[in-house]
């Protein structure tokens, strides 16, 4: 009997399909935000460039590296749980949570600096976009960390296996979405002028 050598490609992304619907909705909201920022900038380029010059690009670099590294750690966690390694999965998830914490601390210092300088949502259009966009993303990082922590707790209790690990993939997909959004947000707000 011959064995078919073709591999059937999946039609659906990893994890629960419901999280992907949620991810699409989130991505749609961020896309509107990004476009609104870019077109608002057309009206007063000098204001946006001056506002951008007050931002800490080094902190943004650190945060970008933290999110990319966190995403990489989550990839490793998923790879290990696919081999049934709950303990290894937990280790990488904790490392990813550590990267999330780095992001929150660095961003917290950035906010403290701006608020200390008297910057608010109503300072000008640039800061309105900067604060609302980055804080909206900040909240998503927190939610992503809560999801990863819940997944790590279940993995620690041996709740996943090589055959049943959809929960890990679901949490991972959300975390990657948070990373993906920042990969556009970082150059748009901090670099492009």
């Amino acid at each position, binding site marked *: 009997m011959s064995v078919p050598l073709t591999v059937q*490609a*999946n*039609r*659906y*992304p*990893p994890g629960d399909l419901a999280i*992907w619907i949620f991810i*699409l909705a989130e*991505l*749609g909201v*961020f*896309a509107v935000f*990004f*476009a609104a920022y*870019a*077109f608002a*900038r*057309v009206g007063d*380029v000098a204001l946006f*460039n001056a506002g951008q010059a007050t931002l800490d*690009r080094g902190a*943004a*670099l650190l945060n*970008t*590296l933290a999110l*990319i*590294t966190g*995403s*990489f750690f*989550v*990839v*490793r966690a998923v*790879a290990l749980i696919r081999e049934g390694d709950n303990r290894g999965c937990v280790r990488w998830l904790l490392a990813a949570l550590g990267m999330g914490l780095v992001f929150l601390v660095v961003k917290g210092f950035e906010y403290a600096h701006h608020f200390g300088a008297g910057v608010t949502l109503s300072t000008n259009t640039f800061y309105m976009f900067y604060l609302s966009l980055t804080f909206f993303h900040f909240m998503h990082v927190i939610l992503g960390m809560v999801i990863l922590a819940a997944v790590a707790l279940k993995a620690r209790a041996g709740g996943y296996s090589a055959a049943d690990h959809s929960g890990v*993939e679901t949490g991972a*997909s959300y975390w*990657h*979405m948070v*990373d*993906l959004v920042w*990969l*556009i947000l*970082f*150059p*748009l707000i*901090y*670099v*492009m*002028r």
Partner: protein
Amino acid sequence: MANPLPSDLRDALSPAARRPWLRPCTRVYLVLVGLTLVTFGIGASGLGGLPLALAVLGLALVKGQLVGDWFMGLRGLRGPWRWVVALWLLVPGVLIGIAFTLASH
């Protein structure tokens, strides 16, 4: 039961031996870090202008596609879900490009 394979052959056939020195996802991670540093370098240079802004945007879109393909696992899919991240990157990417082009005139 004794393993019939010699130990050196057994080691050569083990999953660890078959694993490449750098996993694909590790290579993608290093590319992402490299592109991020390039983006930061462009920003730190203080240079502006439409060509550089569009180049930075292009780098961001490439990074996003790498995350979608390799980290989110869309690379091996068939059907509409395969292109969901690409489409998401394209729409705001084009709009941002148009807005920055308008702003440069």
